[in-house]
């Protein structure tokens, strides 16, 4: 009979207001600084790469060899304290080379699953457009589902599975360009580009930074990244910004290949992650403008470089509400 009285008192609602705990300003700053130290003069790209990782997306880098694609993957893995693997995609690559294979164990008369390189946190898929479509799609399915199925058995991938795929500019010989539908699965498409003269000078002077990568101290761990991702989800997206995002999506559909609703969702996620990296608890229209080319470029034209150009033109046409 001793029924507890229903508690009437309600705490003043704090939802939406100051929803973020203290911004990890110091840690974020350190991470960004370290990444930039390795990849000199490319803070733009490293920031976007980090945002992509926090938004649980995958990264596509399109550039000529030798500008630092691998270095970026290496630096990310080392800084964030994640293990990373590299797969060189070639024209004779088989799906099993990526996801793993079941081998018959003659000792216990059973098939055993030998996990492929995909079972890692950061996977650098180098020159993905050199592999035939079959091998490409094996990777892309793994990216989307975050699991692989071999011989009817599903194997879950790592929680923070993050793919950095690089591809050569499409006009090179012996390339299988990724179809639009596959490109849609990459959250961000980046160019790294040649360093500017001053940076290049410094690079030439101080030599390759790759040697330093091995000695880098991890600044974060997987748990902390998970926490940051949760914080990203709470970043406030006001209705004028949503209006703006919607206007951008609409405008993209009137000319050429439009952006899918999945792209729209990804844009929202990426904006939040980017705002978080800027240590803000709300998204500004400037954030949207900043990340939009990286998100939309490869989706609209199939190529990162021309896509970026196209996306920037689109930004100039869509008015801020």
């Amino acid at each position, binding site marked *: 009979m001793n029924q507890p009285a229903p508690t009437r008192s309600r705490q003043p609602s704090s939802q*939406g207001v100051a929803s973020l705990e203290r911004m990890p300003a110091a840690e974020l700053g350190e991470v960004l600084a370290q990444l930039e130290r390795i990849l000199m003069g490319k803070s733009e790209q490293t920031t976007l790469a980090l945002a992509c990782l926090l938004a649980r997306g995958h990264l596509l880098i399109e550039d000529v060899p030798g500008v630092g694609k691998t270095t970026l993957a290496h630096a990310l893995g080392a800084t964030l304290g994640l293990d990373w693997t590299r797969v060189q995609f070639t024209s004779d690559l088989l799906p099993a080379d990526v996801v793993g294979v079941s081998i018959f164990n003659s000792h216990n008369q059973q098939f055993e699953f030998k996990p492929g390189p995909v079972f890692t946190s950061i996977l650098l898929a180098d020159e993905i457009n050199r592999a035939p479509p079959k091998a490409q799609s094996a990777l892309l399915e793994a990216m989307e589902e975050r699991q692989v199925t071999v011989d009817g058995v599903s194997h879950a991938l790592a929680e923070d599975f993050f793919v950095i795929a690089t591809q050569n500019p499409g006009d090179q010989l012996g390339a299988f360009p990724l179809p639009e539908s596959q490109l849609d699965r990459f959250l961000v498409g980046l160019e790294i580009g040649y360093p500017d003269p001053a940076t290049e000078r410094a690079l030439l002077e101080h030599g390759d930074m790759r040697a330093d990568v091995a000695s880098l101290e991890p600044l974060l761990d997987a748990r902390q990244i998970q926490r940051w991702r949760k914080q990203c989800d709470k970043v406030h997206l*006001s209705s004028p910004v949503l209006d703006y995002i919607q206007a951008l999506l609409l405008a993209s559909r009137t000319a050429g290949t439009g952006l899918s609703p999945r792209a729209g969702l990804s844009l929202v996620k990426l904006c939040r992650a980017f705002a978080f990296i800027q240590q803000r608890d709300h998204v500004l*229209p400037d954030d949207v403008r900043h990340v939009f080319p990286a998100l939309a470029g490869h989706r609209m034209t199939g190529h990162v470089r021309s896509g970026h150009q196209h996306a920037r033109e689109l930004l100039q046409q869509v008015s801020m509400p």
Partner: protein
Amino acid sequence: MTQVLPEKAAAEKGFRRPTGNSRWRKWLPDLGQSRGTTPPPAMDARTLFALAILLLLVQLPHLLHLPPWVSLIGATLIGLRLVLLKRPDYPLLGTILSPASVTLLAIACAWLIRVDYGYFIGRDPCVAFLFILVAAKFAEVRRPGDATMLLCLAAFLLLTQYFYSQTILAALVTLPAVIALAHALAILRDPNNPAHTREQLKLVITLLIQGLPLATLLFLVFPRLPGPLWSLPEDAAASTGLSDSMSPGSIGQLSQSDAVAFRVEFDGAIPASRDRYWRGPVLSEFDGRRWSVSPRLLEANARFQGEAADIIDYTVTLQPHNQRWLFALDAAVSLPRADLPSTRLANDTAVVTQTASTMGTDQTRSGRQRAGKAMGRLMSDGQMLATSPVTQVLRYRQSSVLLDTISASRQPPDSTLFLPGTNERSSRFAMELRQRLPSDSAYAQAILQHFNQQPYHYTLQPQLLGDAPVDEFLFDTMAGFCEHYAAAFVVLMRSVGIPARVVTGYLGGEMNEDYMIVRQSDAHAWAEVFIEGAWRRYDPTGAVAPSRVEQGLSAALPDDSFVPRLARLDKGWLSDAQLRWDALNHQWQRLVVDFDNDTQDGLWERLGLPKPELWQVTAIVLALTGLWCTVVLGVPRFSRSPMLADERSWQRLCELLRRRQLVRKPAETPAEFLQRAALAWPAQAGRLHQLQEQFANLRFRALSEAEQRQRQTEVRQLLTRLRWSLPGGSESLTTNS
């Protein structure tokens, strides 16, 4: 309350029997104790609370005039119902507030009210009963459907408040109740809307303000019923004012009050203060101590022989005094008429033309008579009587000629000569004096001189007088107030066979803005004596204390005597404020309360339009209502969401910069735009940067309401400062204006 208790006990008993009589149980509140049956939907707490607040606010203005026990029962019932809301499992309370016991309580209260007032059919007891009934209904309310009925009852109870007072204050006191009424309506209309009370109040007040123009329109053009909607049986209420009899000290007492007797607006020049004799009851009957109004009065014609140009026209606004007499400057030459603004002008021009052509005596008067319906009669003793006792504020037009002599067509009645024979010393004194003097008028003058030269003095606190008050006053105490002098004068006249009578009324009046206030402290008594075929006014008070006649009460009294504050000569700011307030109330009475169908007709005339038909009025009202609704509903600015406030400020900033040739590109984000602005005006870069921060926070961040408001204030300040400090700011302002 004692009547209720046995019933309560009985109800309790019936309730406690678990397998009680089913007929009984039907009347008991079902508060969930009867297990097995599903309780009917109860009124939700929010509605109940809103209704309780509404009823308390409605009750508030009534507390002034209701007996305390009625107020107490009413407020207690509401309080108990709220307690029941908090503690629904309290069995005794539920029984007290069951329909059966509340009905019994109401019946008991009806009986008590009958006992308390002595009668039941009348304004006061009926309002008291309604007061109890509304509270009782609230006490037993259970079902949500009853709320609408309670709202109607509350509105009606609120209206009854105006039976008692129609001043601005009364209107203001009902204002919170009106807001609460609208609030309760809003809750009933949309019971599931969980809006905060403050938000809802804001909405309700906005709606009320939006409704104001419509209410004004309807007030002006909605057809009025001639006369009051229903006539109430009169209640005998005591109020200050002159009475139909006078004994030593009665006017002195009245002078202690600074209540307003009536207010006067003069059409033309204002008469001098010594001429402002406002004639009231004329007292001719004397029993040796008391003076009273003659019971046999004949109606007389208002007659005036002389130039019509001397006529003073004015409008009197008389406070209710529950007697029949009306006041007019001595001597009245017209009957009091209803105040019609439109006919006033027409009438006056008629007077002027008639004066120019003829002698203009009776015709003038009859011309005046035609204007409005007469509101009273003029009696043979010069006293004006209304057709019924004045229980409400009464406004009438009146014309007078300043005369202290009224020619009489017929001989004065014998009662004006009667003396009961108690004041023998006075009679002897009068006889001796009269024999020495040649004429009646010389005798009257001699008496005035006697008052003036002998050590008589004027005081508010005369000694008490015995059986022969006039003798004692004249020869022993020699100190008195105006009624003593007037009475003694009349007795001295009557002693030598000259007809004389006491006239009471008011002397003086004080200008406040454009009208005159006559207060109870101006009450006065003087004498009228019939000499050579005419009634002549003699004011013996003037012989003793000339300053009373010239300057008013306080000038005539020694400094240490008590005079009502508002009758004093040197007034403080408080009196000033009080006079302002009085002026405001007077305007209110004139323009709002007295707005009747005649005034309404005058309104159309003033606009130069013929009086419209009913269907035309309806069409006008509908058209204007439609127009107003379009304006209110069509302007999106009226929707006040905090988001839109930021948008408005942002638009203002863009407009501000656009005027200075910095146009925002459509694709530019606020930050980019303001950075460009900072480049254009480097001196203002700091302020622009601050604005950028504020806008980013306001528009794109989730903020608490308080912070949002604070930031909006800051933005407004920043915008104002920016407007003034940007080059070209003052120029654009001047070109705008």
